[in-house]
């Protein structure tokens, strides 16, 4: 087994472990930190898959912007870990069964269908590079790209409208 392969398994293990810790941690801050760890391991996967640009963007956008926002809100609201009342065990077991069923169904689907392996003849290692992606993004995907700006505008207007303090409300 060569070193990249063992590195893949190590990264996968770390990804799953941190994902599980996100869900089971009692303290929201720990959850956020584990989620950031998960994003870093995912970026590791993207580098292994030769998608360098997305690996960088993943760190910048997810770990850098989204998770900081999460952390900011959690600290802003001063969330304590004992705030949350746990769901009953029955609810938890039921949820786990639902999740397990989804996994088994999907796993069965993967087992039963042929997944084409990669094709060494027309393999292009430059696919994940910024130049290549830019060409596609600004040509074929121009319309959704422009319309995604509407989505961001909606989110901005909405967040300001909901989040801003009304006259007479206290700050926090």
């Amino acid at each position, binding site marked *: 087994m060569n070193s990249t392969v063992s590195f893949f398994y190590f990264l996968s293990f770390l990804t799953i472990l941190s994902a599980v810790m996100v*869900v089971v941690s009692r303290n929201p801050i720990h959850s956020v930190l584990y989620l950031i760890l998960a994003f870093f391991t995912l970026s590791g996967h993207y580098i292994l898959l030769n998608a360098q640009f997305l690996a960088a963007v993943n760190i910048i956008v997810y770990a850098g912007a989204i998770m900081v926002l999460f952390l900011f809100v959690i600290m*802003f609201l001063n969330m304590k870990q004992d*705030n949350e009342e746990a769901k009953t065990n029955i609810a938890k077991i039921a949820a*786990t069964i639902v*999740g397990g069923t989804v996994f088994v169904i999907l796993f069965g689907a993967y087992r039963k269908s042929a997944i084409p392996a990669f094709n060494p003849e027309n393999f292009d290692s430059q*696919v994940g590079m910024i130049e290549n992606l830019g060409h596609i993004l600004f040509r074929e995907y121009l319309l959704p790209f422009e319309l995604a700006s509407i989505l*961001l505008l909606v989110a901005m207007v909405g967040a300001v409208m*909901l989040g801003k303090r009304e006259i007479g409300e206290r700050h926090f």
Partner: protein
Amino acid sequence: MIPNPNIPEVSIPSVIQNIPLQHYLILSTLLFVIGIIGVLTRRNAIIIFMSVELMLNAANLLLIAFSSYRSDPSGQVFVFFIMAVAAAEVAVGLAIIVMIYRNTRNTDIGFLNKLKW
């Protein structure tokens, strides 16, 4: 075949040569399922939302894996859009949570039981 001087000769990444695509499918499905279980078992709105982020990232990982194995860039372009959408959702979601906190001082979704869950 004459190598193109502009593009450096990069060999096929060793992960793609050695790891079957199946493993990526299973890994991302596991992440997806962990996300589902998180949404269903937790009550804290912020943690539920983080579990949803896990589900989105499972899709990202799988899209990139498919796209790299097939040398088809459109999967990776899709990931951009998912990131934009995730950012937009986070902004709105956290604004909603802050708004509720102003009114109730709590972010536990079971706390407000005027409407039954």
